[in-house]
């Protein structure tokens, strides 16, 4: 079984001019944690996931683990202010421009290995051909379904 066999062909993508605020709204509406960012020729420019946005909006003493737990604070004004400042910016500012990708002929095991190695950032694996032409995506769920049989 290869990536081609389990990938979703009609993946939801966002264009590079999309704002972070708009991407967040789409994530909420579509209940998706991540999108591929592609140009009009479906060339993969990067991937954007919720974790990347959270990391940027959080003060770095939280995102970098200096303060592992903030349960004592009912809310953080800094987080909302930083998120507010972040929302009008384009997704290209936050996205990962060099995400781990697979080829259609790669095995499911190769996809599972990539997800296992970077579980925090891989909410989707883009499947690309040629010069980063996006042909589909694979989520962790697709791999789980295949492994579960």
């Amino acid at each position, binding site marked *: 079984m290869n990536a081609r066999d389990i990938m979703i062909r009609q993946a939801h993508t966002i264009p590079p001019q999309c704002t972070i605020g708009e991407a967040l709204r789409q994530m909420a509406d579509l209940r998706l944690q991540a999108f591929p960012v592609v140009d009009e020729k479906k060339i993969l420019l990067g991937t954007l996931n919720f974790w990347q946005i959270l990391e940027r909006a959080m*003060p*770095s*003493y*939280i995102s*970098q683990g*200096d*303060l592992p*737990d*903030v*349960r*004592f*604070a*009912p*809310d*953080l*004004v*800094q987080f909302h202010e930083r998120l507010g400042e972040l929302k009008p910016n384009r997704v290209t500012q936050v996205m990962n421009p060099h995400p781990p990708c697979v080829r259609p002929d790669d095995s499911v095991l190769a996809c599972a290995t990539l997800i296992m190695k970077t579980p925090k950032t891989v909410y989707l694996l883009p499947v690309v051909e040629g010069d980063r032409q996006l042909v589909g995506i694979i989520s962790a769920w697709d791999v789980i379904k295949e492994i579960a049989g």
Partner: protein
Amino acid sequence: MHETSIHTIFGFSPLWVATSILILTYAVIIAERFNRAIVALLGAAAVIGTGVLTQDQAIQGIDFNTIGLLIGMMILVGITKECGIFQFLAIKAAKAAKGSPWGILVMLSIVTAVLSAFLDNVTTVLLVAPVTLLIADELKINPYPLLFAEINASNTGGTATLIGDPPNIMIGSATSLTFNDFVIHLTPVAIVAFSATLIPLWFIYGKTMFASPEDRARIMAFNEYEAIRDVGLLKHCLLVFGLVILGFIFAHSWHMEPATIALGGAALLLLLVTFSLDNEQAGHKVHTMFGQVEWITIFFFCGLFIIVTGVEHTGLLQSVADWTLSLTAGNFTVTTLAILWVSAILSAIVDNIPFVATMIPMIKSMLPVFQQAGIPLEQAETLWWALALGACLGGNGTLVGASANLIVAGIAERNGVPFRFLPFLKVAFPLMILQILISTVYIWMRYL
């Protein structure tokens, strides 16, 4: 001078070989190009390899009381920090100040100073600084003054006890001075130096610090009890820490060294936290906890002890001590104050650990000279207090004066708060001079 069995090494006297190794090692450590533990261990290997010391002599030169005390306290702190008590105390302090920025500066400084008196300074600031950044963010104030005050408080608090700062641990271990001696002789001056520092800090930063009632209300809405992540662990830690502190207080009458107490406490706490686990889980837990020990520091100490033993063995330190005494004309007052001020200035510039490691044998060889001159032993011990005060408080003078300074600066820089050498120096150095002046008056009035 110790007797040495080797008269020349490659045609050079052991004194020159050992001195060259010491100077070269210290120069490379100061250059900070290579990890200091590697440099110290290479220096130690050179001391043995060139025949300045035999391996047995080198091993005997390592002060295992210092090593044991450091490892024991590192394990205790490594376990304790997991329960969230440090964050609890920081938030409690901020709320006690009713969210007032200056009040928070004072309260966080007190918390930092008290914690640093009993724990490793680096760990203390590593845990208090992130909460400070969050508090400053919520108050919409510049965190720099709070972090600056915490650096100062950490080094000043560390001066107060035998276990507060590595120089004190080394001095305590090399002498018969007890935990209680350090409390009696150093805590009062540390409290005065800490309090006095707050006055200039008020004029430099405090006067202009302001937060709106809405911002202050956000601090008051924090629930510090939510910061405690593991109540069971907290109870174990408090119990063991209580026993360890009692142990330090009564160590002398029980004829025990602080290392035994710290390592015994660490073992007891490890037993308590792994008691209900199966063998495999317990093994994993103990492995993780031992990983909390800063092995770089430990091996750095081992290497330094061997290098210093090498130069001591060849008689260099005795010669330098004699030369120092000739400079001060054997005057006890001048010698004491010279040790205080030279220690402070040098510790502000270079790592105080190698400096103190070198000074200890020198002061040891000065003591008999002063006793022969009629100075009672208790008064002669003032030299140790001068060394401790100079070496610990000297760390406040510059950004590179102590590890805690660099740790806070690193956390601050990562969060967009610039901590630059010169701006820090402009405020910190005069404050350090103030603290050394206070120490001078204290030593003068109490001992001289």
